[in-house]
């Protein structure tokens, strides 16, 4: 008998695309709808601040699946179309333009949008924030010939954009609210290692300062800071964080500023309605409720949500992992440690080649961060997931294989 079920996935990013692929891989033969707000097949966003921004990658190279794949897999796509309303009682999603899609199961993977900066002049041509392909194209067009760029915010996006635009010959100045680069995520010691790398590449950085206003006559000419600086600029790239796109859940009580709450199997309080990726606030068995904006998480959560939709639910306990490429340096991080008690370094911060282990007050490994030392981040996954108290001397000793610190299961 044919499978008459209909599954709707709202969100045309990496998470939604991975979910529909997983549904087919797991043998689902019912109808699948994939709704995406951008008029393009799902693509990977990391290259937008790196290879694509520098003009090295093409759109075809960064697509999650080649364009024809969706038709081949009998996925009914609505790209360039927003889902505007969720009708919980009738179990249907309403799209802009009026189309109404009934669903047996729904996945909301609507992702995030950039936080806006509260300063006059953000509407001036030349003030850009980076989220989608159009933004990356706008930046590429604006920086032709090497111009003066101000990066507002030195989190991962700001740091990667600064590195990419420096690499293509722009003059780059940074205005960052905290005391060093990536301070909020990586803390001062590792943040300052990255600061020194940017400094070596000729980026000028102003810390403990924020933008007061953007000025210019018809287009951006300078960025004025609260600290009294006036920085001449042709382009300003604003990267000050994101917020989840939760409007579809209006009226359900799930349209929360911290993300759509889901249980450890990624189901919302509405049976058969799931959320995953940047928009989801999932209840992590190790770290507690959290919203994660990483590439790898979008893949893993998308796949996990698809299996939950099929009744194959498992607790989502991935330790979370991401990377960042800046110049010729790769940073990797696993786990989650908003605050930590002790940092053990394997390798050397000074030599910019290390894996740092972040432990809580009880000595439990919460996170691992590396520069040019990726293997031990990957090998720490299991230690983090199982909340191990590793021997600290062993962590610091590069000759100890981290896998030997995982006790036998059972």
């Amino acid at each position, binding site marked *: 008998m044919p499978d008459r079920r209909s599954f709707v996935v709202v969100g045309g990013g*990496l998470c939604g695309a*991975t979910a529909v*692929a997983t549904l087919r891989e797991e043998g689902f033969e019912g109808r699948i709808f994939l709704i995406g707000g951008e008029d393009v097949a799902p693509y*990977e966003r990391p290259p937008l601040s790196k290879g694509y921004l520098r003009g090295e990658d093409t759109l075809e190279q960064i697509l*999650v*699946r080649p364009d024809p794949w969706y038709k081949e897999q009998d996925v009914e796509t609505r790209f360039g179309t927003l889902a505007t309303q969720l009708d919980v009682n009738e179990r249907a999603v309403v799209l802009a333009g009026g189309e109404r899609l009934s669903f047996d199961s729904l996945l909301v993977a609507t992702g995030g949008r950039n936080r806006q900066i509260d300063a006059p002049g953000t509407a001036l041509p030349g003030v850009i924030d980076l989220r989608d392909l159009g933004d990356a194209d706008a930046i590429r067009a604006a920086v032709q010939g090497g111009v003066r760029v101000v990066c507002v915010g030195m989190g991962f996006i700001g740091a990667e954009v600064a590195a990419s635009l420096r690499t293509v010959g722009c003059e780059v100045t940074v205005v960052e609210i905290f005391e060093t680069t990536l301070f909020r995520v990586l803390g001062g010691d590792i943040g300052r290692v990255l600061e020194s790398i940017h400094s070596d590449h000729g980026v000028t950085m102003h810390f403990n300062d924020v933008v007061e206003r953007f000025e210019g006559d018809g287009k951006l000419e300078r960025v004025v800071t609260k600290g009294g600086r006036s920085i001449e600029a042709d382009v300003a790239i604003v990267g000050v964080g994101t917020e989840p796109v939760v409007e579809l859940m209006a009226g359900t009580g799930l349209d929360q500023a911290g993300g759509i709450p889901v249980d450890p199997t990624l189901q919302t309080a509405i049976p058969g309605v799931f959320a995953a990726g940047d928009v989801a606030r999932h209840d992590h068995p190790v770290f507690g409720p959290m919203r994660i904006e990483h*590439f*790898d998480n979008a*893949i893993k959560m998308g*796949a996990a949500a698809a299996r939950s939709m099929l009744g194959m639910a498992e607790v989502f306990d991935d330790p979370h*992992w991401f*990377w960042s490429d800046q110049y010729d340096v*790769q940073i990797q991080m696993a786990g989650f440690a908003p605050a930590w008690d002790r940092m053990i370094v394997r390798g050397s911060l000074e030599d910019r080649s290390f894996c740092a282990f972040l432990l809580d007050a009880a000595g439990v490994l919460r996170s691992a961060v590396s520069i040019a030392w*990726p*293997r031990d981040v*990957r*090998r720490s996954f299991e230690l983090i997931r199982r909340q191990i108290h590793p021997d600290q001397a062993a962590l610091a000793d590069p000759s100890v294989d981290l896998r030997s610190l995982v006790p036998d299961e059972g």
Partner: protein
Amino acid sequence: MAEFVSVGRSDEIAEGEAKAFDVGGQEIGVSRVDGTLYAFSDICTHRRCNLSMGGEIEGTAITCGCHGSTFDMATGQVLAEPATEPIATFSVRDQDGDLQIEI
């Protein structure tokens, strides 16, 4: 016609490790798992990182150190995304300590 080409010494490949060889311009990774040798294209089909550098081996799976794509070194199949295209695999043999790959 395919033939076996000597690329180095088989004892260069430690248990649980992978090493890349340039074979006529092709970068081929060779690993050893439970004593068995595997040969595969060393270039991840996602973003062209070298699998043997920073890659993590678990059983016959190798996970790319860049972005986490995982391949079966025996069959080339993708075991975990973001890669969606398989890698090529090659026959490999140990001839009295001489490491040979079939090209």
